[in-house]
């Protein structure tokens, strides 16, 4: 299920709702799997009373992980060579996140085809929570 360079063109894009009504439980799942048990993500009492946020919020890496799925579902398994993001807004429980990945360039380097993507994930208010870029090896 890998992608040929001839199947892509600059400007192609995909938009996917990566989570609808993010649950606290999913954030707990991410804490357990990743090993990042920072109470800011799972402990409302600490987060509200000590850290002074309105509630727990998702690990940035959870948003990056959900965003990455849009890329890997598109380019195929094990095809990413680079993936990087900035975290631009906190994601609270209840969030609905939509990722858009767009082909920015298709190039051949040393006989290998690559596609460069930009990726942005927006919340239900239309604000970007994750922005970044990625590169994938194509056939």
């Amino acid at each position: 299920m890998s992608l040929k360079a001839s199947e892509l063109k600059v400007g192609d894009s995909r938009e996917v709702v990566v989570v609808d009504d993010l649950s606290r439980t999913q954030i707990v799942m991410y804490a357990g799997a990743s090993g990042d048990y920072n109470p800011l993500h799972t402990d409302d009492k600490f987060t509200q009373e000590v850290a002074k946020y309105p509630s727990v919020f998702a690990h940035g890496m959870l948003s990056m992980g959900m965003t990455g799925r849009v890329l890997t579902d598109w380019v195929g398994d094990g095809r990413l060579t680079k993936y990087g993001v900035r975290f631009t807004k906190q994601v609270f429980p209840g969030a609905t996140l939509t990722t858009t990945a767009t082909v920015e360039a298709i190039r051949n380097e040393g006989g290998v085809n690559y596609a460069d993507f930009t990726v942005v994930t927006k919340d239900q208010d239309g604000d970007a929570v994750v922005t970044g870029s990625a590169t994938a090896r194509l056939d």
Partner: protein
Amino acid sequence: MAIDKFPVEATHIMMFARAIGDTNPIYSDAEYAKGTEVGAVIAPPTFVQASAQFDDEYPLRPMPGKPWFGSGKEATGLKKDPKGDGGGSGGGNGGVLHAEQHYEYHRPLRAGEVLTATNLPPKNWEKEGRRGGKLLFSETTTEYRTVDGELVVTARGVGVRTEKVVESK
């Protein structure tokens, strides 16, 4: 952080994929994976973050017998520092927010491999925050290698901490 042994285990990959809501069978079904280009269960792109599980001194995991800054009876398990040097708010690494994360994949990471993780010297810089107080940035690059030294993933993370004005309370 230096991790001598980061076993990349199939069950851990499955749990991680579940947590990010990714149902791709390449992360959970060994039989399916055999018939694919990569030939085995592989790790999702952000999986190496879970190497924290194998860091003996990872500060964001409660340790038996040690104070934990999350809530128990009280909102924080940390005793107030009587010197009041301003280190109390957030406690531990609770005040550090993740600003950026970047990965380079030198090849797919497969279940059953064992990696090491080594940090290169960090870069630190400061900016003035918009609401006063300094923003302290720290960038860390981590190299994930096989025991034979083959580089598999390079990770670069940027964290930011707000130097809070000491509140009188």
